[in-house]
């Protein structure tokens, strides 16, 4: 394409193209799916993208062991089934899994704490890839470090596979609260703030000027109901990931559709009441406070 349209100075894999896809996903719901059939249900329910993986976080949590990138054959079958973007997860720091996902042609790579980390000191250098990355964060420093490494989209981590929204709320409030703090800070304090949160100074300045993260920011980890999704939207995120919350519930198609409606009409309680009716059993859920510290996925990554 570059050759035949040389006079147009055509470029692929630019920052604008990577961050731009995330802009197209805003106001939408990205759903975890483990089979092509589930991917179809998600697409039919109005998901703006799907995350293809072998086991949803609730099962990863239950099964234990090492969680790795999914079988590329299985990801390929999901890509063949739906026309919406397909994301897939690589282990933190596992740049070869990311290379494989890029070769496969997935639309977004999630360098995810839900999988067992491959490197306990370093994340993937994401600027090297033409495929965009989304990464998790618990606070502003973590978000800006990931953006510094090339993440074109951020999601707050929450605590995946629990159905408990409390950590998603904590992480969203932390990131958004730190941005507010940054905006009222005298200029001379910015460098020290950047040092304290371990974030690149230039990105700290940019975030302050914008009054928001410089890339699209979704919520993830524990969203199980339309009300949970609308709560995250009202807190100020751009969209939501729903992992185990849909296909671990009693009526996945109906719940998936309701969560999509809730993200569009997050500010309208009457509509939220209407769409929340008769959805069947939600996923059972695990109270995050009952989990031992070594089982907390959000602690992975740095």
């Amino acid at each position: 394409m570059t050759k035949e349209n040389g006079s147009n100075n055509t470029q692929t894999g630019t920052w604008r193209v990577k961050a731009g896809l995330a802009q197209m996903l805003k106001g939408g719901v990205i759903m975890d799916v483990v089979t092509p059939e589930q991917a179809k249900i998600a697409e039919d329910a109005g998901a703006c993208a799907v995350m293809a993986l072998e086991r949803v976080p609730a099962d990863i949590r239950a099964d234990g062991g090492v969680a790795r990138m999914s079988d590329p054959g299985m990801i390929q079958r999901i890509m063949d089934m739906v026309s919406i973007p397909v994301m897939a997860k690589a282990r933190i720091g596992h740049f070869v899994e990311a290379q494989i996902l890029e070769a496969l042609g997935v639309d977004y790579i999630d360098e995810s704490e839900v999988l067992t980390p491959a490197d306990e000191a370093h994340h993937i250098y994401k600027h090297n890839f033409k495929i965009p990355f989304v990464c998790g964060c618990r606070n502003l420093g973590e978000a800006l470090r990931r953006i510094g490494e090339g993440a074109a989209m951020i999601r707050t981590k929450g605590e995946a596979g629990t159905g408990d929204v409390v950590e998603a709320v904590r992480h969203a409030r932390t990131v958004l609260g730190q941005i507010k703090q940054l905006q009222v800070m005298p200029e001379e304090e910015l460098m020290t703030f950047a040092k304290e949160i371990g974030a690149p100074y230039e990105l700290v300045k940019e975030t302050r000027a914008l009054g928001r993260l410089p890339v699209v920011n979704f919520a993830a980890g524990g969203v199980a109901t339309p009300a949970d999704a609308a709560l995250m939207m009202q807190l100020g995120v751009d969209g939501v990931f729903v992992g185990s919350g849909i296909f671990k519930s009693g009526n996945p198609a109906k719940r998936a559709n309701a969560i999509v409606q809730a993200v569009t009409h997050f500010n309208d309680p009457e509509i939220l009441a209407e769409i929340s009716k008769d959805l069947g059993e939600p996923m059972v859920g695990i109270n995050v406070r009952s989990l031992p510290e070594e089982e907390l996925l959000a602690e992975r990554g740095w």
Partner: protein
Amino acid sequence: MRTVLNLVEENQPAAGNVTVGVLALQGAFLEHINVLRRIGVKARPIRTAAQLETVDGLIIPGGESTTIGKLVVRWGLLQPLQDFIAAGKPVWGTCAGLIMLAKDIGQTPQEGGAHILPHRLAAMDIIVDRNAYGRQIDSFEADLTADFLPGKAPFRAVFIRAPRIEAIGPTVTPLIRYGDDVVAALQNRQLLVTTFHPELTADPLLHEYFVSLVKQAHNRQPQTRS
């Protein structure tokens, strides 16, 4: 290099003789609202039929066309949107919005055809292939020239999992090309489509052009607004 444009909501201008709505069900609607406000045009998000009645023109933004299509049906917007077009009011579809406006969707090997999006506005005489340039890895940016606006400098355009216009009917005028592909087109000075995303770049020339269409239509039909 890292700046992502139009993510932060702009202030509404105090005055302006037309109001442009942006369909705000899913996708990059805030980006369009921001560009409009920056060029001094009143802009508001549209989520209901009642809101649609308050605007003189409408942008259907980029996003996921399957998602937007389903939400349009779910919230009873299909008929009001068709009425809006029948009343002669301008509508501009970017990317997913173009797919909503297209009369027909072609079949490509990897992508589903019209059955994926049975409920569309089907108002513009074009046939379009979804995601025709490939998946995200093939998404690209390129320089384009708006030859229909003499004197305008080339501008950078962003194509994200973009559709391709496969065929255009006799009432449709090609406005901008990328190689052999028509990437912007106009029907009856009312329906505008672009396969790329002018809301993701700094140059507002296409927003200015669309607003000029809205103003012309508004002046032709003063009775539609009290």
